[in-house]
């Protein structure tokens, strides 16, 4: 704070722009909350504050982190993505059928994983195309694409569960490097890649801009539609990888591989400071949010709360976080749909 008495009377000191203080709270809040929650659980439960449990938390956060990376880009645009369960289910079954498994003679290895990720990207592309060409709101298109993905997964599942025999894919969940499973390092890599895309690529910058003020961007001569489609495709690829990771963890392909991840990822992103209205937050914010959600889930179980409450706690957090975020504009924003 500059004291007004010392200021030169001729120089008008511009008042510090107010939104910035809000943003800094938005940026600093989640990490502080993470530390506080971590400290509380560490004080409450002796099982919580062990190195083994810390590894558990990091490993449990891996899949969610990858999903959150994808969904963050969509949320930054101000859209929403409910297609996670369908995309993850489809890619989980696809990868289980393409690597060495008990259902067919395929042994595609890494190529199979790549195909599964591309399938996820394809479903994301479908959401994006429906959004920009049919002009259907994203929560409807992605709800539809989720159903399509689940249908595709069920078709491929065909009543017999594919168990994977692929050593490499199975090893991702088992082998450890520096105390963490390979999957966790993949998730760390995804967060890094996501951050680089968000920070340094045109796609990431425009995703921000679309969320902030799409009209302005469109009036500036930017063709918005291809970037929207690209963002949904990128998000689909992340979900595809997440589906592969779940298959690696379970050693089997399940249609329900992505159940609940959509909501958990939205929770993580919102708690981390990515606003549903778009234009704020980012991959690193969401990564903090993922840790918050995972620590909370783990900690509540450690202190003896039924794991069935998990979804309920996430629901409360989302509603609370969103209402806290819209509180400053409450008077201005009269129309909420």
């Amino acid at each position: 704070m500059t004291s007004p008495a010392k200021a030169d009377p001729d120089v008008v000191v511009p008042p510090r722009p107010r939104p910035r203080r809000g943003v800094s709270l938005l940026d600093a809040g989640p990490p502080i909350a993470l530390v506080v929650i971590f400290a509380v659980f560490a004080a409450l439960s002796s099982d919580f504050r062990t190195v083994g449990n810390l590894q558990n938390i990091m490993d449990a956060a891996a899949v969610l982190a990858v999903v959150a990376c994808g969904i963050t880009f969509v949320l930054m645009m101000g859209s929403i993505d409910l297609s996670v369960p369908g995309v993850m289910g489809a890619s989980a079954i696809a990868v289980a059928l393409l690597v060495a498994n008990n259902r067919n003679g395929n042994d595609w290895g890494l190529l199979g994983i790549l195909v599964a990720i591309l399938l996820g990207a394809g479903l994301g592309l479908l959401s994006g195309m429906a959004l920009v060409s049919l002009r259907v709101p994203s929560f409807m298109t992605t709800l539809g694409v989720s159903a399509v993905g689940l249908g595709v997964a069920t078709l491929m599942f065909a009543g017999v569960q594919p168990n994977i025999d692929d050593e490499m894919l199975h090893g991702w969940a088992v082998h450890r490097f520096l105390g963490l499973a390979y999957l966790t390092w993949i998730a760390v890599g995804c967060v890094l890649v996501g951050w680089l895309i968000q920070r340094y690529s045109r796609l990431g910058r425009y995703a921000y801009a679309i969320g902030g003020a799409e009209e302005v961007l469109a009036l500036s001569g930017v063709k918005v539609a291809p970037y929207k489609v690209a963002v949904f495709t990128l998000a689909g690829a992340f979900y595809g990888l997440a589906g592969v990771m779940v298959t690696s963890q379970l050693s089997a392909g399940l249609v329900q591989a992505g159940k609940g991840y959509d909501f958990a990822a939205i929770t993580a992103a919102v708690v981390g400071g990515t606003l549903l209205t778009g234009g704020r937050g980012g991959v690193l914010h969401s990564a903090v949010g993922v840790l918050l959600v995972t620590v909370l889930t783990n900690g509540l179980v450690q202190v003896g709360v039924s794991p069935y409450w998990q979804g309920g706690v996430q629901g409360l957090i989302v509603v609370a976080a969103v209402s806290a975020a819209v509180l400053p504009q409450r008077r201005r924003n009269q129309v909420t749909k």
Partner: protein
Amino acid sequence: MSTPVIADPVANPAAEPAVVTGAPTAAQRVTSFMPVIALVALLAALTIADPDFLTQRSLTAAVRTSAPLVVLAAGATLVVLCGGIDLSIAALCSLSTVFFAMWLPDLGGLTILAVVAAAGAIGAVQGIAHVVLRIPSFVVTLGGMSIFSAIALVISDAGPIRVIDRDATAWLNLYVAGYVPMSFFVAVLVVAVVSLVIKLTPLESFVRATGYSESAARLAGTPVDAVKVAAFTVSGACAGLAAVMLASRNFSGSPTMADNLLLPAVAAIVVGGTAITGGHGSLWRSLTGALVVTLLRVGLPIVGVPSAWEQILYGAIIVAAVALTLDRSKVLIIK
């Protein structure tokens, strides 16, 4: 989701004037009859595929299956008419089946009323959260969906609860005039009563005004917040009634019983032709939509399509129907 409402018609010259009562274009007329056309076409197609389909017995079975879906879709239609969306209906319905199974031994015949009232109250809480906290309805109800599932899992211990006393709901399994299943009769009755109440009171203009242009409705003195809370309350109560129907048919309550009804219910609403942007539509349309969805569900196995295609079809239908009925003049930016 922010869907900016056009304040200035000049900003979008392609937009139609906001007058609703103008003569509909040919395309609009066809679109407005689309659900009925789809229903008749489906019936015809299924009859061709299997001549036994158009018999009294199979039709009775089909409408009986559709009853919970009709009630669920009808309730949520009100929320959609106000311009919102209720994604929590299926989870609330599941929770209500658990309530029903748990309360039946103590409350006996009053359980039905208690469940409907409880579900209505829960719906009202969501509505209040939506209007007071000013959170988009799909966020509130998405959160609600997650919370209700959790509560249902916890109080039921994640398993089905059997309904031993079957007398309380035996009447739902009767037939009106020998042919119409009672549950379907009740469903149609709900649609008729709610439609009539809306039609005969100022509620119709309140709901439409809220859906077509919320800010204008607010300036004109429409009790927008009260209308929205009421819509969510009815939506919740309908979910409770649907739960009673489901529980009486399955003789149990389970925390996931109705979870797979969300997509069919949303499909029924949009296939019926109710615009997801609000204002345009009716409960009768959702009744037709629910019948179309049920016929699809019953009919796919008849024509030999694996049931996995059902999901894919729902997805495609939802997107296509929304694309056809969306009021593009109202939404400048599609998020």
